[in-house]
């Protein structure tokens, strides 16, 4: 009898292995169900009050999106006058701004006048020094390193913005929503989660994953930036413009990509149509 059982199991090793996995999973199921019954579901302020980004309605959104250069220039102005105080743009060069419609001279002026200078070496002494930016330079870092950044920003590192719109879900909408999403904490949040009161030094924002972020509201008043093209600089407008600009910094080839894609798809549709015809023609008369 025993030898029969051994032989049966040896021949049906799959059943033995299967039973092992299934039993381990069964124990898991039991423990999960027990947990569901005995433990109250965990509720968190983040879970209940975090919001998905609102639509910024940018021209770059959608399958055939393009850039509004006027808007990108306005967005650059917001970046330059507001964001660049803390946030770097290290993957871009000044010369890239020519793609926004600035001419060579304007780009040169922007580079030379940039607040932060480019790290360099004193040609006489070899000591570390700085020099004026050139159009071929990358945008300089705002802080020499993370320690300096933390020291100046209440222990938070302002992230580089070059890729920000690609580094977040629905990036352009997220930037727009975050910049316009500061508010006082709702009373019902504090009633439900008294421990979730925004700590001093942080700022409540329902679009931020943890609801509290170190960045103080950067865009606070209409006409905080004097737009050169005369557009009225409301907070909403500035947020949209800088979100459009950061969409460009993260994906400068977006327009080329969309245009090339349309051409490639037209070519492929014709190719596939011809291939279909060739296939039907060759198989004509062959039942299959």
């Amino acid at each position, binding site marked *: 009898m025993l030898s029969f059982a051994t032989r049966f199991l040896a021949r*049906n090793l*799959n*059943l033995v*292995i*299967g*039973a092992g*996995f*299934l*039993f*381990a*999973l*069964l*124990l*898991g*199921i*039991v*423990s*999960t*169900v027990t*947990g*569901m019954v005995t433990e109250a*579901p965990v509720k968190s302020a983040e879970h209940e009050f975090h919001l998905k980004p609102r639509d910024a309605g940018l021209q770059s959104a959608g*399958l055939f999106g393009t850039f509004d250069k006027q808007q990108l220039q306005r967005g650059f102005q917001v970046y330059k006058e507001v964001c660049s105080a803390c946030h770097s743009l290290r*993957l871009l060069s000044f010369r*890239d701004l020519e793609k926004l419609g600035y001419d060579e001279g304007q780009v040169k002026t922007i580079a030379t006048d940039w607040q932060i200078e480019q790290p360099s070496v004193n040609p006489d002494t070899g000591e570390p020094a700085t020099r004026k930016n050139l159009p071929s330079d990358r945008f300089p870092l705002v802080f020499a390193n993370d320690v300096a950044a933390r020291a100046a920003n209440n222990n938070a590192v302002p*992230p580089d913005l*070059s*890729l920000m719109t*690609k*580094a*977040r*879900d629905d*990036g352009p909408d997220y930037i727009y929503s975050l910049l316009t999403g500061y508010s006082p904490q709702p009373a019902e949040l504090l009633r439900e989660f008294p421990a979730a009161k925004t700590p001093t030094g942080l700022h409540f924002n329902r679009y931020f*994953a943890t609801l509290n972020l170190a960045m103080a509201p950067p865009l606070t008043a209409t006409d905080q930036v004097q737009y050169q093209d005369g557009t009225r600089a409301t907070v909403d407008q500035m947020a949209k413009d800088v979100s459009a600009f950061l969409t460009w910094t*993260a994906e*400068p*080839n977006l327009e080329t*990509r*969309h245009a*090339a*894609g*349309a051409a*490639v*798809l037209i070519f*492929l*549709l014709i*190719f*596939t149509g011809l*291939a*279909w015809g*060739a*296939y039907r023609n*060759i*198989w004509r008369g*062959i*039942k*299959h």
Partner: protein
Amino acid sequence: MSFPWAKHYAPKHPLTQWIDARLPLPRLAYNAIGAGYPVPRNLNYFWNFGVLAGAALAVQIITGIVLAMHYAANGMVAFDSVERIMRDVPSGWFLRYAHANGASMFFIVVYTHIARGIYYGSYKAPREMVWLLGVVIFLLMMATAFMGYVLPWGQMSFWGAQVITGFFSALPGVGETVRIWLLGGYAPDNAALNRFFSLHYLLPFVIAGVIILHIWALHIPGSNNPTGVEVTGEQDTVPFHPYYTAKDGFGLGIFLIVFASLIFFAPNLLGHPDNYIPANPLSTPAHIVPEWYFLPFYAILKAFTVDFIFPAKLWGVLAMFGSILLLFFLPWLDKSPVKSSNYRPTYRMWLIVLLIDVLVLGYLGGAEATPITVLLSQIAAAYYFAHFLVILPIVSAMERPRPLPNSITEAVLKNEGGTSPMQTAAHGSPAAAE
């Protein structure tokens, strides 16, 4: 090799005759993928995916070789070198998006190819070796894809490498030593990045080699077909060229349309935003997930939550590797002599459940862990193992298949030679209509 009625290579031009007498490479190609390879005449579109997988590999190798000319495998500069490709290398954005989405296309195509093999019993005698080599290719692909995802050295690259190499630390006793040996350090760093790059460049060529064996093994019995009935005579086959080259040309067109739509209009759809943040060993992402094509296996890994003889983590790791390795035993777990599930109504039902199960596992693998998703993934993982290790062996031994056609041609003349799973779902299995 091949059938007696296969066309013979007969070069007419003196130059081709001269070459044939010295290096019969054109003859080899003619017999492998030309008019010299007779193929069942009733293949449906699911049989396009083998050629498409080859095309996807070719795209990956070509784009990959050019990308490697611009990429720098060093933790200090890897992330920026990828961004340089995106911004400064002419058409670099196209190459990189093609390579990243090419990996996804490769997996979409290969998963379809595997599903077709399972549904039509292509793993059964006399094609077990084709199947075994296919599973080897699949494992090599997974290793290659994982290491490729590490190379941009973003947050998901780094933490993905951390998590995946961490699996090995679950091995009792030697685990931590093995993990450190694999990484070349205590955490992913330059040593890991360099060896991943080296292997990521090597493995695709190994895959190409195994594909040659895969096709060689296929050509001994010839291709399977939707009826699962073997070829009985010349009337059952057509030459691969021009019949299936033409059909594959059309299939390739559809493949490229889907591929181009991803590259040009949704290049980051299948990626994770966190990988646009440079790797930072001091900041763990809120939610570490692998690429979409690993999600079903990731869900199986996470489904084991209770220690039982072994720690839960070891169960998870064993189950995850086991879920793939058990495919090696599929030809012997399935005891039915009937190949095509079109004629196996009982097993067919379980197969549909398996397909849904794997899709559910894929969803759960990427979902946030809540008691509900954990419970669902435990149930889904249990079905996965039950399907292959318990249900399949028992059902295949006990079920009563529908009568098979006597030959491919007979089925074709009754308009049911190429019956697809969808047609069977809509109209019942072919023999049932009788």
